């Protein structure tokens, strides 16, 4: 040690005065802190923008414009033979019903004293293309009503609906062949007269998808069933398999290379892009096993494979959190290893397993990419399945696939549906996650 006493004489400084350097360093400190706050602010701002965007653009889908119209079900047109024979009535196609709508509008204009320059055909065009079919269904269900005048509530066409919601304006329809400013004037008159109204639209939630020409009648219902069936498949397969695999790996697996391979596989599968699982589903389930295209069963199988790693990882974490003393206690009274696991460890880990499973299901529910490859898009999911077997096997869509489908269509009216569909999807996800959080809070155990 050379001259430890040779301390250079540092001028004694007062602690009460900030020197210039400290001031500069503190400024850097403040800046750095500000960067952090800005970053959090940005992240939260994105969330706010996203949520605001979804809500503001999607809530419109839950409202729909309806036109109330009294239609005379003219017997001469609907039942020419006059014998109310259902088979004969069914022979009248929707084309046979269309003229009734024109007549109804004509009558309406006359009664209400609306002054409009447009022709009855153009008046009828403010209705959805589903109007005639709606009448036909009604008549087939109630053949006795032929000849009567019935008040119908028809869906307005998507342009009229958009006009009432502010999406369509007179400027935006300048080149639109489907609607003219005169028709909008007519709609205005009907609105003030009270027969065109906007109200809650249950059929968006319960109804089925509709073709390109009828965005106003498209709904999420059938794809919701598709998603539900897929989730059932995932739950029935992924939960037991995932729990079994976790128990094996956590409690029984010897430390050897096979176990290592399994572990590496699971952690890697958790990070494999979801689209790759779609390719797997297409190649194995559809091309090799010849399962039907677009079937929720195939979707469920693919999502099961995708969700398994998530469930296994969370299940293993909950098994791990059960202290070894519990196992020792069971083994100490002479239980076999298997009994100690199934009688003590598993029940104690159950809430954690359940939470992980729900979160895994929520992930699967929102997954879209693999569903595109197994054909759950590109068609109109029109009819709800009539049995469980049909629900599993017959083509269907799923909520996120339906949203994608709408986003791809040309008519902007479908965009509103897509945003609305997202609201429904998010409601499901939020409820699932809330349940998971509640479960965790309720049963969380600190050892």
């Amino acid at each position, binding site marked *: *040690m*050379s001259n*430890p006493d040779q301390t250079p004489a540092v001028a004694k400084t*007062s*602690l009460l005065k900030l020197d210039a350097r400290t001031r500069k360093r503190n400024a850097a400190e403040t800046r750095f802190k500000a960067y952090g706050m800005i970053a959090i602010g940005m992240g939260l701002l994105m969330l706010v923008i996203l949520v605001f965007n979804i809500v503001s653009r999607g809530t419109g889908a839950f409202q729909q414009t309806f036109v109330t119209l009294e239609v005379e079900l003219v017997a001469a047109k609907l039942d020419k033979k006059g014998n109310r024979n259902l088979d004969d009535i069914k022979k009248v196609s929707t084309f046979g019903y269309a003229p009734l709508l024109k007549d109804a509008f004509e009558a309406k204009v006359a009664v209400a004293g609306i002054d409009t320059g447009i022709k009855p055909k153009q008046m009828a065009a403010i209705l959805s293309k589903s109007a005639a079919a709606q009448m036909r269904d009604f008549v087939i269900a109630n053949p006795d009503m032929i000849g009567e005048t019935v008040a119908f509530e028809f869906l307005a066409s998507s342009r009229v609906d958009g006009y009432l919601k502010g999406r369509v304006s007179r400027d935006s329809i300048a080149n639109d062949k489907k609607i003219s400013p005169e028709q909008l004037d007519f709609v205005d008159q009907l609105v003030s007269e009270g027969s065109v109204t906007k109200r809650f639209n249950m059929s968006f939630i319960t109804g089925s998808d509709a073709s390109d020409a009828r965005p106003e009648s498209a709904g999420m219902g059938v794809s919701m069933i598709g998603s539900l069936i897929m989730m059932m498949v995932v739950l029935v397969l992924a939960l037991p398999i995932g729990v079994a695999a976790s128990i094996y790996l956590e409690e029984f697996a010897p430390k050897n290379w096979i176990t290592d391979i399994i572990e590496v596989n699971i952690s890697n599968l958790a990070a494999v892009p979801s689209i790759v699982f779609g390719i797997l589903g297409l190649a194995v389930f559809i091309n090799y096993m010849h399962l039907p295209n677009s079937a929720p069963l195939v979707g469920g199988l693919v999502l099961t494979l995708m969700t398994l790693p998530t469930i296994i990882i969370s299940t293993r974490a909950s098994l791990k959190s059960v202290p070894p003393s519990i196992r020792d206690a069971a083994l100490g009274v002479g239980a076999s290893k298997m009994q100690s696991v199934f009688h003590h460890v598993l029940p104690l880990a159950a809430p954690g397993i359940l939470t992980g499973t729900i979160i895994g299901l929520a992930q699967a529910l929102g997954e879209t990419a693999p569903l595109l490859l197994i054909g759950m898009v590109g068609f109109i999911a029109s009819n709800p399945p009539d049995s469980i077997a049909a629900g599993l096997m017959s083509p269907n869509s799923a909520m996120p696939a339906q949203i994608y489908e709408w986003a791809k269509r040309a008519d902007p009216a479908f965009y509103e549906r897509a945003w609305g569909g997202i609201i429904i999807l998010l409601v499901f996800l939020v409820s699932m996650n809330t349940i998971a959080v509640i479960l965790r809070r309720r049963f969380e155990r600190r050892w």
Partner: protein
Amino acid sequence: MNTMRLTESAVDTDIKITAKDVQVYYGDNHAIKDVSVEIQDKTVTAFIGPSGCGKSTFLRCINRMNDTIDVCRVQGDIKIDGEDIYDKRVDPVQLRAKVGMVFQKPNPFPKSIYDNVAYGPRIHGLAKNKADLDDIVERALRRGAIWNEVKDRLDAPGTGLSGGQQQRLCIARAVATEPEVLLMDEPCSALDPIATAQVEELIDELRKSYSVVIVTHSMQQAARVSQRTAFFHLGNLVEYGETGQIFTNPVDPRTENYITGRIG
């Protein structure tokens, strides 16, 4: 050496740190109660007492390290050279440059030995140029009694040294900023006896330049290295005085009980 120290009186009786009626709370827990103490310059002062008695907490008040704990509140006066360190105008950063600290576990940064020692001088802007910094680093390492062991591998990571070397590196790192007070929180508790002896020898050397405050749970160590000893118990400062007097003739029965091994 021991016996000599026991009878030795303080070389210098300048008061460096004055604490008056210090209270520390961790949330609802009243950790330090009414502690008043005067710590002399160029002296080794030992804080002893059973675990959880508040000796480390009090030590961390002296350079405001407790500020980094959210739930911790400090009341009362602590003055260094007559200046209240909890005054609003005091920047803890400047304070800590003046009051260095060595921790219980050696905590070298995952950087080279050189960078470890140069860290303090760099952030405080103590070196005018590279040569100056080299000088400071060498002086600090010499003062840390580790220069001869590391002078050939200043670029090696500090984490690669042995435990005792790491702790001496940390001491060198602390003295590199030219502090006036050096706080040591059980600096030898993670070291083996040989490394402990080296560090203790070093502490004795450091006394010549600094006011050293050392927290230790080993009474032997306190007796070996310190001139004055404070005994803490359950958050209270029970007894404070010459080390020799505390160990041979304690006033308070609690001190006696602790020293004779009846509490602790």
